[in-house]
């Protein structure tokens, strides 16, 4: 008895919700369009045998699990090389300053 009452209340609630938020009519063949788009996006993400090896390779390379560590490695390598280069430059400058203070150019 109680269950019948709650079922009827749910139906009334659903009807009220539909009335309060009217949905526009879907365009013709809407569901068909949605499925077509899903298939197209899957074809891009998981290319079939029909696509070329290069396309498949590019898709594999550009996966986040390769791209993100790759970018991180480039950042680290660039920073390390930059720091090394800066230390070499600073060392050369310091040597030049010392030489200029003890052995002026006409003597070298």
């Amino acid at each position, binding site marked *: 008895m109680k269950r019948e009452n709650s079922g009827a209340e749910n139906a009334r609630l659903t009807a009220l919700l539909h009335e309060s938020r009217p949905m526009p009519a879907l365009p013709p063949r809407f569901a068909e369009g949605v499925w077509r788009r899903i298939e197209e996006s899957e074809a891009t993400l998981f290319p079939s045998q029909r696509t*070329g090896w*290069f*396309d498949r390779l*590019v*898709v594999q*390379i*550009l996966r986040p699990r390769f*791209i993100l560590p*790759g*970018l991180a490695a*480039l*950042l680290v*390598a*660039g*920073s*390390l*090389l*930059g*720091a090394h*280069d*800066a*230390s070499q*430059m*600073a*060392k050369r*400058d*310091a*040597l030049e*300053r*010392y*030489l*200029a*203070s*003890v*052995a*002026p150019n*006409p*003597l*070298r």
Partner: protein
Amino acid sequence: MRRSFLILLGTFAFAAAVFAGSFLFTRQIWVSRMANPADNLEWLRQEFKLTDADMARVRNLHELYSPRCAEMCTRIAAKKAELEAALAGSTNVSASARQKLAELGELRAQCQAQMLQHFIEVSQAMPPEQGRRYLAEMERLTLGFHEQIENAMSNHGGHGSAMH
């Protein structure tokens, strides 16, 4: 295929930009942090890992040497000016110009001898191993340049054939 190629090309360009950007950015930061233009002796501390006590001894020697070096440089500059005046307008090397050349050479030799003496004193103010390395490096950097020129001139074909 073409679209994939363009995407891959764009990815490589982006990767190159990331690498170059991180390289330049880090280098700029480190250069500004490491540069110490106020201290001419910083190279000695870095290169020879000198302690504060070593640096104090070296700094003392450097401060004694600097005014003598500056005085020699002034005398050399004055002698060069005299030589230029003696050479001005003449089409041959006059006796006066020869005299000035000899005096200039003598002054340069004195200055170099004083400089080498300073290097020896500084090397003795360092721990023995660093001192030996410092002296060898200074001789290479200050006298080696002349040796390179002299070697190049003696190996030059024109000079060799002129002697025979």
